[in-house]
């Protein structure tokens, strides 16, 4: 008799501690490599799954496919030479690296940044957050088979890239926020063109609400799936939207305002359920907030003034010995740069604290056992991790 329920009589037994005794020689387990070449993966990384039927009993993340040794390369570049390479640390949201690095250098070298530059930096960071969330929205929908959201979101993201290009002179790696300020002020008519993009984005986000968040399939596949116990947040260093989806209303922008966030009015969105649904909806609401912030910034910022201070001769620029940590709220959570200088012309050590590092490794490995193979991709995407910042 045909049945939808699989016959599990041959499946291995659960051990005394509730865990499987994994032994490949029993023939009951299969190693399944999810990535690095896999459309459901969030980038160039892989998860080594041990499956029993379609249930995942164990999962290990493997990273390092994108390792370029940034922290080593930075040690043999002068302070200004580090500036172009930091943005490469995180491909989809590069500007945070530029900001954190520039702010760390400015703090240790004692450089004051013009007020307008701080506004432009905030603008850039919010535009980057917009792009990153757009990718995340498309990603979570795509991971659950809803490809059209990905198409829309990529389109809107591309419109924002046009604004980026116009402001910074590049599409992806902007290399715009350098120690001492930013490269240039806003171009003519930038606000109007930005407003157009934001309105388009809002129109598409209305559609996302109808197509994704009012969707029986999406609800069924995300509600209650991939639950993270908020008690684990501190143990696993969970920050950002992932934590806000579990009721922890923490946001560096609010708690420890940097740049000009103290001059903007906003409330960070919080959800309580801590599952894939909650994480998606928190991002969606945060994206709406970002649109609002961009509008606020453009309305309030000073324009037409100095945006860059004169630096000492960067070809032999030395910074006294010291260390500092600069953090900010990226689209994935707390993003920080730990910079150690030793009085020479080169950084002694730069350590990038990316949120994906904790989310995609220990946390993901903790969450995977017991899920369904089909949900692994959704789970990964819902954590919103970017492999390049894990391994750097």
């Amino acid at each position: 008799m045909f049945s939808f329920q699989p016959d599990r009589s041959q499946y291995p037994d659960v051990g005394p501690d509730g865990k499987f005794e994994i032994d490949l020689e029993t023939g009951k387990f299969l190693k399944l490599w999810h990535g690095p070449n896999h459309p459901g993966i969030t980038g160039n990384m892989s998860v080594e799954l041990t499956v029993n039927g379609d249930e995942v009993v164990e999962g290990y993340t493997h990273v390092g496919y994108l390792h370029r040794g940034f922290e080593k390369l930075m040690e043999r570049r002068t302070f200004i030479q580090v500036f172009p390479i930091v943005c490469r640390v995180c491909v989809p949201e590069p500007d945070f690296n530029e900001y954190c690095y520039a702010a760390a250098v400015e703090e240790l070298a004692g450089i004051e940044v013009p007020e307008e530059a701080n506004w432009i930096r905030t603008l850039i960071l919010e535009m980057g957050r917009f792009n990153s969330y757009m990718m995340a929205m498309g990603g979570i929908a795509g991971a659950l088979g809803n490809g059209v959201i990905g198409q829309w979101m990529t389109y809107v993201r591309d419109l924002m890239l046009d604004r980026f290009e116009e402001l910074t002179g590049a599409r992806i790696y902007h290399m715009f926020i350098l120690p001492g300020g930013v490269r240039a002020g806003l171009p003519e008519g930038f606000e109007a063109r930005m407003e157009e993009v934001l309105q388009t984005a809002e129109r598409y986000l209305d559609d996302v609400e109808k197509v994704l968040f009012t969707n029986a399939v999406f609800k069924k596949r995300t509600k209650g799936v991939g639950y993270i116990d908020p008690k684990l947040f501190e143990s696993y260093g969970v920050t950002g939207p992932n934590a806000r989806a579990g009721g922890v209303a923490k946001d560096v922008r609010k708690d420890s305002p940097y740049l000009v966030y103290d001059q903007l009015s906003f409330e960070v969105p919080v959800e309580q359920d801590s599952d894939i649904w909650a994480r998606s909806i928190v991002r969606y609401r945060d994206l709406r907030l970002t649109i609002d912030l961009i509008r606020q910034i453009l309305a309030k910022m000073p324009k037409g003034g100095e945006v860059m201070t004169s630096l000492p001769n960067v070809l032999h620029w030395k910074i006294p010995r010291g260390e500092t940590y600069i953090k900010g709220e990226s689209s994935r959570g707390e993003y920080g740069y730990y910079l150690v200088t030793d009085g020479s012309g080169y950084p002694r050590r730069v350590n990038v604290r990316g949120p994906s590092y904790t989310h995609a490794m220990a946390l993901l490995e903790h969450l995977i056992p017991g899920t369904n193979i089909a949900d692994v991709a959704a789970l990964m995407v819902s954590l919103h991790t970017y492999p390049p910042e894990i391994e750097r």
Partner: protein
Amino acid sequence: MRDLIEKLTPRYTLGNATYQRADLTFVDVTRDELRALLLELRDKEGFTHLVLLTAVDWIEEGKFQLTYMINNREADQTLGLRLYIDRNDAEGDTIHDIWPTAATYQRELREMFGIAFPGSPRVDEEFILEGWTDMPPYRRDFDTLAYSQQTYVEREGRETHDPRATMKHKMYPEG
């Protein structure tokens, strides 16, 4: 932050403290007391968030500096504990039972600096690198350019000239 340091000083041997910003402090600690200190800071002082754990190679002094950066989210305070360990046969104490996520940091330190963390889960497995046969690359004495030139092939046919020498040669060919 000074209050906290002063409060802890009678019970712990705290070294040099650097008050970098109002919300960021660094302080030197000893290896014996690290664990107790971290536990106290986490459980009693609200430093519940491990921001990062990393190392700095002070090769000239023969030391690794382990930086345990912890954060009190309520008070918006970040505290960096600096622990100096010997560079030779470097070994640290695992704190993965205090913060499970520390296991990942310790794996990276093991691989990139060659610092052992006995007892930390999967600490000896390959992490980021694959098939690495050389010295841990984040050590200061590892020369990445030399390694790169010896291992990989660069495109040929490039040659540069020093403006100083070229000009001198051009204007005064005789010397």
